[in-house]
């Protein structure tokens, strides 16, 4: 497999606006403060009844937030931060990612044809004043990161000057029950990424909006970039329906492709935000992938999974963890890998445990993986 061309030959891609909501609260500031504090957001589920489930905890906001309302606000905040007027927003396409809505399968059969992800994307684009939403990504835990990579590809190739990306998942009873039945949820109430004794994942609310644009367009407008999106990679495992390749081959290929495109050597990466679901399969495969892609530098590379703080936000993971990566570049603080109780020999990594670690990072990587062997990696750089 040949590496993609470095973006140096194409339009450089920058982030000019970003807003994110997790169980820690609404807006990027809440996540910034939570990453500095390093305490997980998990609590007893109150949004629906979990008395019949093995697992009882998740990381969710109080009450019952409405996804499209929340995302409309986040898109407005991101566009505002980017300094876009209504005309510029109106010329900007949206790439959106979401899980199916729990209301859809409860509609009468004759209304089924109106219930789909693309409709949410188009509704959201209309409400936010964006041009259109031609694709709403549904590829599970890499949906948002794929949308970000594709937005970057559109900009780098000169097809679009600017793209808005949004993604969201709100903890719901159907998914909770499904994951509980699949024994994917941690019944000890903590998400312990890469740790000995980890017992699975916990779900979390996550929503985010990001404005990506070409560096030259941002400069012409006088917009101040928050970070650069230097490289992206997408690769498949071709191994299993729902398990990752045990040696992390697809994840490693996505990492190598993203770093080649970013023109960054392994030792130039200061931090890796891992997928780190806290499941046995994922974390050992991911550790193997990091060793394969980073080689001799792997034992030194600081790594953490912020799912241990926010919970697994499924289709929104890529955008929540992209926001975390931007904050790492801005704040000079590597977030903690919470819930860690000791080393698993299959996950030998330089994990940020106990407390956030100060480091003026210049280059960070965000890695995601999903069922079906889908993998993505994004390389972000300080500006």
């Amino acid at each position, binding site marked *: 497999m*040949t590496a993609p061309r470095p973006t140096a030959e194409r339009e450089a891609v920058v982030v000019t606006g970003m807003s994110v909501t997790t169980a820690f609260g609404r807006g990027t500031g809440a996540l910034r403060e939570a990453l500095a504090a390093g305490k997980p957001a998990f609590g007893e589920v109150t949004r629906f009844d979990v008395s019949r489930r093995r697992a009882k905890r998740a990381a969710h906001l109080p009450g019952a937030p409405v996804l499209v309302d929340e995302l409309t606000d986040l898109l407005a905040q991101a566009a505002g931060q980017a300094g876009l007027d209504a005309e510029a927003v109106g010329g900007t396409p949206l790439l959106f990612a979401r899980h*199916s809505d729990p209301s859809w399968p409860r509609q009468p059969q004759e209304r089924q*044809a109106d219930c789909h992800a693309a409709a949410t994307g188009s509704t959201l684009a209309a409400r936010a004043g964006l041009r259109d939403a031609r694709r709403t990504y549904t590829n599970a835990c890499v949906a948002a990161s794929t949308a970000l990579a594709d937005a970057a590809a559109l900009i780098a190739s000169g097809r679009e000057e600017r793209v808005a990306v949004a993604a969201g998942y709100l903890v719901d009873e159907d998914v909770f029950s*499904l994951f509980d039945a699949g024994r994917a949820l941690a019944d000890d109430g903590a998400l312990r990424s890469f740790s000995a004794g980890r017992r699975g994942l916990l779900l979390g609310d996550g929503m985010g909006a990001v404005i990506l644009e070409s560096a030259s367009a941002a400069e012409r407008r006088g917009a101040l970039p928050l970070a650069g999106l230097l490289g992206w990679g*997408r*690769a498949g*495992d071709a191994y*299993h329906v729902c398990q990752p390749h045990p040696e992390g081959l697809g994840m490693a290929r996505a990492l190598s492709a993203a770093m080649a495109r970013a023109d960054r050597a392994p030792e130039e990466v200061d931090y890796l935000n891992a997928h780190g679901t806290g499941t046995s399969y994922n974390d050992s495969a991911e550790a193997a992938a990091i060793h394969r892609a980073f080689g001799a530098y792997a034992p030194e590379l600081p790594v953490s999974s912020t799912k241990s703080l926010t919970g697994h936000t499924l289709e929104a993971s890529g955008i929540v963890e992209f926001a975390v990566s931007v904050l790492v570049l801005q704040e000079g603080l590597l977030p903690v890998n919470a819930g860690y109780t000791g080393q698993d020999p299959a996950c030998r990594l330089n994990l940020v445990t106990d407390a956030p670690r100060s480091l003026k990072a210049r280059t960070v990587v965000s890695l995601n993986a999903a069922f*079906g062997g889908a*993998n993505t990696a994004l390389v972000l750089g300080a500006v």
Partner: protein
Amino acid sequence: MTTTQVWERAFWPATESEAAQGPRKLPGFVVSSFSPLVAEVADRCLRAQYGEPSAAADDGARTAVVLVSRLGDFATDRAVAKAVDAGRPVQPLLFFQSVPNSVIGHVTTQWQLLGPVVCFSPEGDPEEAALEYADLLFADGEADRALLVVVELATEEGAHGSASALLVAPEDRPTGGEQP
């Protein structure tokens, strides 16, 4: 911009009797015909081009798989919702097929396709959206071929779902892993 060339195309159902029988069962997948439809058309399309999976090995390293479905697997979602609302346990197998990626894992494992794995719900014509997306992947240099699968379950009682698969490549450059 590249021009995408369609190398192979397959459909389900191909005949009326096929439609009446439904797609072949896919081991490990239950309740819904979504994943069996995807597996069937993908296999037909790839066999038409390569014959056997071993013949696809060279191309597979840079072949993307893109699943396009406006409605997605609502039959699986309905089965989950029904169990939850009735207070019954959810079948564990439904967890593994709850996202559209899963069946792609089946196809890519069988055919050793190592490129990007992407699923989306399109606004507008699904096949046009799939071709447009393949063109983006080719321009981005991450794949030289793409298997595009378009699938929809029937929304009307007594009707059957349908699926098509296209194997596509960029027209303006040779395939086989050369630097774009």
